[in-house]
């Protein structure tokens, strides 16, 4: 199991040929209180870098991009009733969706945890 990161602060935790996508702890802090997550329909195919979901705070809406290409096989329906989970546990229960990976080699272009940590230092 590996976790990779994007410059837009999404993570993808890969288990076999499925990746669990969410936003990083840094991202949830920047957004503030999450009030709504607009999730895609199951079965939707998304290309790497395409809009996969929208996360909303009171004052802003941010697009969440697919870190890699794939098909949405599951979404976290629990967020509808409890969007605050994204703030409380972004890396765990606050995940957004599961992607069946179309091309595992796309993962190579993403950052490792250490690289992401270093990236955060450059932007803060």
């Amino acid at each position, binding site marked *: 199991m590996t976790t990779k990161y994007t410059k837009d602060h999404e993570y993808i935790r890969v288990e076999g040929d499925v990746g669990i996508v969410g936003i990083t702890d840094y991202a949830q802090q920047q957004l503030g209180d999450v*009030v*709504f997550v*607009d999730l895609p329909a199951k079965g939707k195919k998304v290309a790497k870098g395409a809009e996969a979901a929208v996360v909303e705070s*009171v*004052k*802003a*809406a941010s697009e969440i991009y697919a870190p890699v290409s794939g098909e949405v096989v599951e979404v976290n329906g629990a967020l509808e009733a409890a969007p605050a989970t994204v703030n409380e546990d972004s890396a765990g229960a606050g995940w957004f969706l599961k992607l069946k990976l179309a091309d595992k080699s796309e993962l190579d272009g993403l950052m490792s945890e250490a690289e992401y940590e270093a990236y955060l230092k450059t932007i803060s």
Partner: protein
Amino acid sequence: MRYLPHSTEDREAILARIGVAKIDDLFANVPAKALLKKPVDLPHHAGELEVERTLGALAAKNVPASSAPFFVGAGAYKHHVPATVDHLIQRSEFLTSYTPYQPEIAQGTTQYLFEFQTQVANLTGMDVANASMYDGSTGAGEAVLMAHRITRRKNAVLSGGLHPHYAEVVRGLSAMAGDSVTTMPVDVAGNEDLIARIDETTSCVVVQNPDVFGNLRDLRPIAKACEKAGALLIAVFTEAVSLGLVESPGAMGADIVVGEGQSIGVGLNFGGPYVGLFACKQKYVRQMPGRLSGETVDAEGRRGFVLTLSTREQHIRRDKATSNICTNSGLCCLAFTIHMTLLGQKGLKQLAEINHANAVTLADMLDGVKGVKVLNETFFNEFTVKLPGDAAAICEKMAKKGVLAGVPVSRLIPGDKKVANLLIVANTEVNTDADREMFVKNLKAVL
């Protein structure tokens, strides 16, 4: 000039504090050739009395509804507005406030909006209503775009009983947005087969009830057909008082309801400002245009109201917003809320019954005039009559005799010979027996 408090000395003192010699130094960014050296060619300022004379003279050239037996409807209706309504909407704190961006000092607005939303939702039988649109017609345009967003389909079907001006607004906006709209043929009898036009590419069906010709429409079978095809039923009304007596669109299965709220609390105003009512099922709320007031608590735990779900809106979502609408119809929305609070369901029902009874009385009287025929089987307070000649010409003759008889259908559907003899006649609580007698007497005289 009475509205400008500064004296010449004040202006000089301020210029000195700013550190410039003259006012035009502050306009330095304006290209010199575009900066006007003197006032434009329009009259000099004027006192209150002079302005009253000028505008009073223009007003005097019009014939107000209250000065004549008045039967004009077709989208705007002459109703009585209680004195309380006009007094309250002129309270400074309502009249001169703005969109409640600072809710701590705008609870008056956010609370009445919450009451308005509840009134509209309950009146229409829907889950949720917004804080109003500009008017019914622009609301209809927005509803069709909303249906496209929800169904991801681009084909709307408009009933032939939809107010032709509403249909024009919808078609214009949809065409610009790249959607296609099918408008059914003019349906004076109210018996078109809309269900046959619904298929798996249909985003929505737009039906007005009572329709523009006054017919009452049973929306239930259309709602069922829409549901089966995955399309949305958009129910439209132009006469809000009808909801006191006619089954609500929500109870008949509508997905989105848009209506004109002018009849309750708002005057005729030659067509505006009015107040658009907009309601939908709960599951569509995030695709709704317009402002929403929601309940919350303050730092001390006391109940309060704030604008909410703003991420749908243009100031946050910019080019991805559900609409470009910025505000609502504020004061008209307040007028509606106050009048509805006075009426309550009991008063609204009574008012609707009076309207209906008056209209039935007039319809029976007109049916007795030789050569005149009321076309409707069902109606609320408005119906269509067939005259033995051109309705517009007859209307004009009636106007000369001091009776404003109705709206010739040719005014709404120009160039269609089949409707040239049709007149839409509205009859509300303001019309007396004497008004109706005047109508019949003068109609007979001009035929």
